[in-house]
Each structure stands twice: as structure tokens, then as C-alpha cells.
């Protein structure tokens, strides 16, 4: 099949806010009111959770959907999984659809792990024979061999999630819809889940992935859609959209000082610089003071955007810049330099101005510049420690044989 597996064509979804008539007690008076001509103003309570969203996902593609809480991500997932129906527009999902949403939703606490595997498998649309033939694999993947005859209510939440993911991972889907499942289990299991999802993708499964976990989105997805209040504001490459999201998330205002900063690197494209790991980067900072300041200092912070990690922070007073004294309306310029000994990924620079006497920020410019580190060796982590290695030529020890 060459057409897209998942199509969202100008989809709108409206909800009614507030109380509906959940009981006849409320409904009967409302009905009487309507019949006697006094109309209720219910339409004012309606709001659009998803507005005019369109996208397509083909075989082997993965679309990430990011956005703040309440932006409409879950609604889109429910529309995709047929739980909800669009108010306007059309959605099409072709082939067998696996949904990793609330992967343990079908579990019953009083049933054993084994019984729940069959139940949950059936809920996901698997045949009993299919589940039976993959049962051992499912259990091994979840690492729960010893607990299959224990009621699920005795499981930890991590065990629960592991079993849920494992069942879903052994479904044979054409389309996979994933919601935040990677936030479960320990680190090692998360790695395993991500690995499994990458394999799904390489096997030609079309994936829609909703997550707050930006590194996972960046790793898995071929395109990312940013949702804001139900509107798809940006759709594009993971790096660009994640950068846009982080800029939007960090928009706080401290307006005593206006900060302008320019990064200088050997190469750049658009708003994001491509930087070799270890490259020396220069940052020109200009401060427009709107208040008079006696002693201020500048903080330079580097954050890992995809992992949402504070990587580095240092301030002007530690590098020999004397306390900054400025009159109102004055502009001061500085140049900083640092070496990007970082692993591959997207990083953002924050420049802040602090008044140490009054213990307050005069300015916080989050994500004022961003850069993308290119590097081939590491697979995880932030600091580049430049691993190298070679066989050391030691002869193999002869194997002792018991007599």
C-alpha cells in the first residue's frame, strides 16, 4: 500500500463544557423548559478542542505530537482510535491499529497476570491463538516470568505498565498510536520500549506518538506537529518544532533589562546553528538597561532542549568581569566564549541578568539562541568525553580444562 495510512483532513472537534443532563431529574425540567419555549443557552458552553488539524502519516513514518497540557493532544488520539468522532472533517486510519494508550486500562486487579494478558490481548483485537503463541515472548519482554499467576493488584505500577506495553508490543499492527507510555518503568525498560518502537517503524508501521518526553520524540519521529489550543501551529522536522516549542514554553518576562544575544559559529542554517562537538562558540550579548543598576552580573546557562536538562551555568563575575554598573537607558556589550563539549542534540542558551543585592532577576532570556551539536560517537548523555578505543593486542588466555 502506497497511500498514507493515517489521514487527518481538516478535523474539528467540539465539546460541551460544564454539566450535561446526567440524570432524569435535570433532564425533565430542561425538557419542559424547552417545550415551553424558554431556550437554554447551551451553545455558549461549547468549545473547540481541535481546530482544523490536518496531517498524513505513511508507512514507516512517525509523527510526533507535542504541546502543553490541554492543547488537544489526547483529543486527537481519541479521534484516531475511534473513541471520538470528529465534529467536522474526516479522519482515516487504514489497517490494523494498535493503540498504546493507557496500556493497562483493560487489566482487572483481581485477575492473574496470565488471565489479564488474554483479556487485554482480546481488547486490543488479538485472537486467542495469536496471544497463546506469543505468550512466552510477551512475558519474557515484560520480565515477569515469575509473576504470571499473581493477581495484578499485587503488581507495582512499573510491573503493570511493563506487562501492558509488552502485550501491545506483540500486536502486529499497521498503525500504532502511542501516548506517553515511555514515562513508565525503569530506565532500562524505557530503552527497551524505544528500541521496540524504532523497530516497528523500520518494519513499516505508521506511528503517531504523543509525548511530553521530547528526547523520545526527537529520536523516534520523522516529523513533529506542535499543538496550541487545538490548532496545529507548526509541523516540520523534529529539531525545528521542538525548538519552537521550547521558545514558546520559556516566554517569561522580566523587563528591567532587554537582552539581545548573537551566537557566532562556523556554520548555521536559519535559527538553529549546526555545531561540531567541541567547537568554540562565541556569544555577543547586548544589554539595554531600563533601570539604573549598581552591581549586576550576567548568567549564561546552557540547556539540553530535548532532555529538558540543565547542562551548564556560569556567571560573569566568575570570569573576571567586574560588577556591572549602568545608568537608565545605557547599553552595555559583552562577549563570551565557550567550548561545546556536548553530545549530539539540541541545546539552548539562556542569558540572564541578576541583581545580587536585591536577589532578583532583571532579565531572563530563555532559549535566546539555539544550536544543534553534530557528533557520531555517543548514544546517550550530555557531556562529550571523546571515547576512543582499539584492540590492545593481548593474546587470549588459554582456557583451563578440568581434568
Amino acid at each position, binding site marked *: 500500500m502506497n497511500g498514507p495510512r493515517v489521514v487527518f483532513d481538516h478535523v474539528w472537534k467540539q*465539546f460541551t463544557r460544564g454539566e*450535561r*443532563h*446526567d*440524570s*432524569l*431529574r435535570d*433532564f425533565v425540567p430542561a425538557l419542559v423548559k424547552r417545550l415551553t419555549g424558554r431556550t437554554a443557552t447551551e451553545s455558549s458552553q461549547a468549545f473547540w478542542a481541535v481546530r482544523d488539524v490536518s496531517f498524513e502519516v505513511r508507512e514507516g513514518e512517525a509523527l510526533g505530537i507535542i504541546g502543553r497540557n490541554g492543547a488537544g493532544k489526547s483529543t486527537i488520539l*481519541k479521534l484516531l*482510535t*475511534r*473513541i*471520538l*468522532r470528529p465534529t467536522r472533517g474526516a479522519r482515516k486510519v487504514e489497517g490494523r491499529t494498535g*493503540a498504546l*494508550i*493507557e496500556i493497562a*486500562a*483493560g487489566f*482487572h486487579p*483481581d*485477575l492473574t497476570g496470565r*488471565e489479564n494478558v*488474554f*483479556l487485554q490481548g*482480546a*481488547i*486490543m*483485537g488479538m*485472537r*486467542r491463538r495469536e496471544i497463546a503463541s506469543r505468550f512466552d515472548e510477551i512475558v519474557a519482554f515484560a520480565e515477569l516470568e515469575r509473576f504470571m499467576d499473581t493477581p495484578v493488584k499485587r503488581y507495582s505500577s512499573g510491573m503493570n505498565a511493563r506487562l501492558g506495553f509488552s502485550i501491545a508490543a506483540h500486536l502486529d499492527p499497521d498503525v500504532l498510536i502511542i501516548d506517553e507510555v515511555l514515562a513508565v518503568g525503569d530506565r532500562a525498560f524505557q530503552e527497551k520500549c524505544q528500541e521496540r518502537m524504532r523497530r516497528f517503524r523500520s518494519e513499516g508501521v505508521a506511528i503517531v506518538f504523543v509525548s511530553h518526553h521530547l528526547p523520545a520524540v526527537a529520536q523516534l519521529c520523522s516529523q513533529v506537529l506542535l499543538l496550541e489550543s487545538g490548532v496545529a501551529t507548526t509541523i516540520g522536522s523534529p529539531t525545528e518544532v521542538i525548538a519552537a516549542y521550547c521558545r514558546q514554553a520559556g516566554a517569561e518576562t522580566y523587563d528591567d533589562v532587554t537582552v539581545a544575544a548573537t551566537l557566532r559559529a562556523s556554520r548555521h542554517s536559519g535559527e538553529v546553528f549546526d555545531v561540531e562537538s567541541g567547537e568554540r562558540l562565541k556569544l555577543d550579548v547586548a544589554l539595554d538597561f531600563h533601570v539604573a543598576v549598581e552591581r549586576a552580573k550576567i548568567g549564561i546557562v546552557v540547556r539540553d532542549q530535548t532532555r529538558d536538562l540543565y547542562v551548564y551555568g556560569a556567571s560573569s563575575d566568575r570570569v573576571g568581569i567586574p560588577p556591572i554598573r549602568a545608568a537608565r537607558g545605557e547599553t552595555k556589550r559583552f562577549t563570551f566564549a565557550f567550548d561545546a563539549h556536548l553530545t549530539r542534540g539540541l541545546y539552548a542558551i539562556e542569558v540572564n541578568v541578576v541583581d545580587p543585592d536585591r536577589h532578583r532577576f532583571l532579565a531572563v532570556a530563555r532559549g535566546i539562541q539555539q544550536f544543534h551539536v553534530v557528533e557520531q560517537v555517543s548514544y546517550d548523555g550530555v557531556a562529550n568525553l571523546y571515547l576512543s578505543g582499539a584492540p590492545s593486542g593481548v593474546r587470549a588466555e588459554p582456557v583451563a580444562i578440568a581434568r
Partner: protein
Amino acid sequence: MRRLREDLHEIVREQIEFRELLVQMTARDLRLRYKQTIMGFGWAIFTPILNTLVFSLVFMRVAPVHTEVPYPLFAYCGLLVWNFTASSLRFATTSLTGNTNLVTKVYFPREIFPLAAVAVSLVDFAVAAAVLAGLMAHYHVGASATLLLLPAVLAVHVAFTASLALVLAMANLFYRDVKYLFEVILTFWMFASAVVYPVDAVHGTLGQLIRANPMTTIVEAYRRVILYGAPPEPVAFAAVAVFSLLVLPAAWLLFHRSEFRFAESI
């Protein structure tokens, strides 16, 4: 007309796709009852036996009625049949609202919930029927060739119950009062269904009303086929059969078309 065909097609396709889920959900509910209660399947026979004792006391000692077979046998057979409908509908009413997690989070045909409630009660029905066989042996009432008509009676009974199960589950999702209202109606309905007394004992308009109740016809049909060695009353039973077989697809279609509103309304 086209939409109707598409919807019917979808209903059938989904049922085929998820055919094993109905079995799994039924098994889930049976297992749970077995695990959560000490009596397990004992409950399936406990209720009709106890009720039979109570009504035997009333209708043999206090206000004796004439029945073609010994009264306990007569009453147990009626209660057994009635219990299947009553417990199916009682479970079905809360089957959607009691599974909020599944209804709002995972997609599969929601018909599974009320239908599993009917299936669970059907298993109880079968278990309790064993006691009926015991009672028949005790009172030396033998079955005759009319027992061959039992599958037809059962089919009509199940279709009738399933249609109501679908409607009630849906109604209770939209209006939670339905559960309470239904409990009240259920008691009233039992006495309006000639379960514990012979319908011939009631004369006049009241008798006609009771006869017009489909459950009266169904209960009577079971008794005639199993205990009296007679076929069901042809006209009344044919009417109920046609009614059930028309209502079931209609109820199913109604349910299916409201399905997409469930997650928003629950």
C-alpha cells in the same frame, strides 16, 4: 437506506473482528465472581431455590393455587427463566458505567459489555437448570418430545433479553437514574409476568394485560415445553418471536449509532 446498510455492515464486521472478546469478557466476569465470592456458582442456584421456598409457602399454605405440576417445580421453572432476564438486565444496565476506564480509553465495539452481561447470566441459567432436572426427577415429571422445541424458546428469550440489555446499558450511560428506576420496575414486572402463579388464575382485563406481557408468554412457553409436554401457544409465542427478532436489530442499530457519544457522555 445506504447508511443503514453501511451501519449494519460495520456492526457485523466489528463483531467478527472482536468475536473472541465477548468470550474473554464473559470469562472475566465469571472468573471474578468465582474469585471474589465464596459461593461462586452457588449463587446461581441459591436465589431461585430460596425464592421457590418463599413462594411455595405463600401459594401452597397461605393462598393455595392450582397448578398442573407440583407447585415448587412450577415456581422454580418460572423463577429460573425470570432470573435469567432479571440478572442479565441488572448487570447490563451498569455494564457501561461500571467500565468507564475501558469506555473512555480503548476502542472496541461497546455492544460487548451488555452482551457479556447476558452471556454471564446465560451460564448461571444453565447451572440452575441442573437443579430443575433434579426437581423433575424428584416429582416424577418426565420430559417429552416437546423438549426439542426448547432451543427455539431459548433463542427468542435471549433475543428479547439482549435487545433490552442494549437499550438499558445505553440509557443508564446517558441518564444514571435508569438504574434505580429499573430496579423498581423489575419487581413490579415479575409479578406482572405470571412467574409464580398460573396465568389462568387471573381473569378479566388484568388477565389480558398479563397475557400481553411478552415475559408471560416466554415463561409459559418454557413450562409447556419442559413440564407439560405441550408446544408453546402458537399465536402468542409467534408474536413474541417476531417482536424480538425485529427489536434486536433495531436496538443494536440504535446502540451502535450512539456509541461514539459514549466516551463524551460517561
